């Protein structure tokens, strides 16, 4: 079983924070936005929002572009591929282990 690459680890860690999840969810739902707009509806300060966005960016989950004096962020859904991959690998892992469980149950006393 090969469960993860480094990028998978990074993606999961970046998603483990509720604030970052909420930011990514908003970008997925509402499209590209400035840090100012994202901060207006977040429960944390603008520097904190920027820091969270930087983590998401390093994990490949968002993309940034300069627009005058603002930085605008958009979701990069392809970055979620490791999550899908993780689920598919574990589905295969558990399927195989459950076959072994059924075999064990047949060998056990009633």
């Amino acid at each position: 079983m090969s469960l993860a690459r480094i990028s998978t680890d990074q993606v999961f860690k970046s998603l483990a924070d509720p604030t970052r999840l909420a930011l990514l969810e908003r970008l997925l739902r509402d499209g590209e936005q400035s840090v100012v707009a994202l901060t207006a509806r977040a429960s944390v300060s603008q520097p904190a929002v920027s820091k969270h966005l930087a983590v998401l960016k390093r994990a490949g989950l968002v993309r940034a572009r300069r627009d005058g004096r603002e930085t605008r962020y958009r979701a990069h859904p392809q970055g979620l591929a490791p999550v899908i991959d993780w689920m598919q690998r574990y589905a295969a892992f558990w399927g195989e282990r459950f076959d072994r469980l059924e075999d064990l149950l047949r060998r056990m006393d009633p």
Partner: protein
Amino acid sequence: MTTTDTATRSVVIERQLPHAPAKVWRALTEGPLLTDWLMANDFRPEVGHRFTFRAPPVPSWNGIVECEVLAVEPPSRLAYTWGSLGLQSVVTFTLTATATGTQLRMEQSGFPAQGGDSYFKGAQYGWQGFLTGLERVLGGLA
């Protein structure tokens, strides 16, 4: 049945087993039996017990899973955290008696953000919130 559930984006396996729930429960909670079908372990069915699953390492995986027991409700529900390679998830087994034996369901869901009792709330909130958005974009990923 094995799925990556499209509603919750967790890994779900369901099997109809021609064995009584008490027997299936033993296979899930007795260390030597658990070793037989899952992995070598020092599991004990006690909430709060920390234990490890160990498999032979392979190049991309050290073979170690760090766990903590979250729920023990014989013979119907068992849950523990599942941490491997820095990825934290929660594994929950649900056993339901049927006319012919047991329906066994395993669900593994990811992204718990906090420890202890808040695991479930954290996982549910974060995961669900995230999935709301994820559902919209999955079509483009397949």
